[in-house]
């Protein structure tokens, strides 16, 4: 009986939407008329991290805040601002967290060094194998 009541109550329940009642911003889902500008905006949006869906870029995210950030990026690109300046403006506010583009900061050094270290380790292993075979 109780489970039936709970099921009925769940049927009547409305999903709690944490979204606003406003439509997406004008440039959130609309391409810029100039293909060059749109390409620059796209490239930048692919490398900016969504603050809501933190694993996605703002180009991929459906979050409203990501839409508002796309609107911001497209407006500024259309106004002639270089992508690097827009990225720097956002990094100033949110830190390097906001950008997917790896930096040369010490925290990112392992990322740059890892391929070289792995390549060196591989070469070392191959050299040892060849020497062992030669001896056998």
């Amino acid at each position, binding site marked *: 009986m109780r489970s039936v009541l709970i099921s009925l109550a769940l049927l009547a329940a409305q999903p709690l939407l944490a979204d606003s009642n406003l439509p997406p*911003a004008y440039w959130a889902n609309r391409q810029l008329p100039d293909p060059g500008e749109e390409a620059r905006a796209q490239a930048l949006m692919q490398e900016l991290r969504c603050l809501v869906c933190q694993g996605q870029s703002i180009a991929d995210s459906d979050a409203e*805040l990501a839409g508002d950030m796309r609107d911001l990026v497209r407006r500024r690109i259309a106004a002639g601002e270089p992508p690097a300046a827009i990225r720097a403006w956002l990094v100033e506010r949110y830190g390097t967290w906001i950008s997917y583009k790896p930096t040369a900061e010490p925290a990112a050094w392992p990322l740059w060094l890892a391929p070289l270290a792995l390549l060196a380790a591989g070469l070392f292993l191959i050299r040892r194998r060849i020497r062992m075979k030669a001896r056998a």
Partner: protein
Amino acid sequence: MTRAIRFAPLAVLLLVIVALVWRLATPVDTNVSSKLEGRPLPVFALPAAVPPKPALSSTELATGQPRIVNIFASWCVPCIGEVKVLQQLKARGVPIDGIAVRDRPEDVAAFLANNGDPYERIGSDVRSQVQIALGSSGVPESFIVDGRGVIRYQHIGPIEGGDVPMILNKLEQSR
């Protein structure tokens, strides 16, 4: 030598397990804090969210005494509970201004009528542009701005009853 190497996979496995257990025990903080703490407010001028209540611009925030700028929205559920705490702060003489994010005037008016109105001024940020300029990543968030218009503290999430002494302390420090 070869014996020791046999145990290498086991050692790697143990390392992975230790790393996983450590991450489970101390989850990552997914809050993104604004880097503007200690810096002047970005320049903005927002239209009034619910006329005739005054609009909000950055130049009007350097009033000589610390104030709270609360980022909220009528569609934000935690904001409902936060308003009561903001009312308490207002009763203690704390000046509070609001920024309504992605909101319609009628929705903000209904929100204030239902939950109370602690705000002196409310700006309407329809495209979240001022929210982004402040380095804020969601609603609700609050910024303590000192008398010279410098951001002194960012509070992510609702200010709850237990946070009141801490907030009053931060306001005192910003004097």
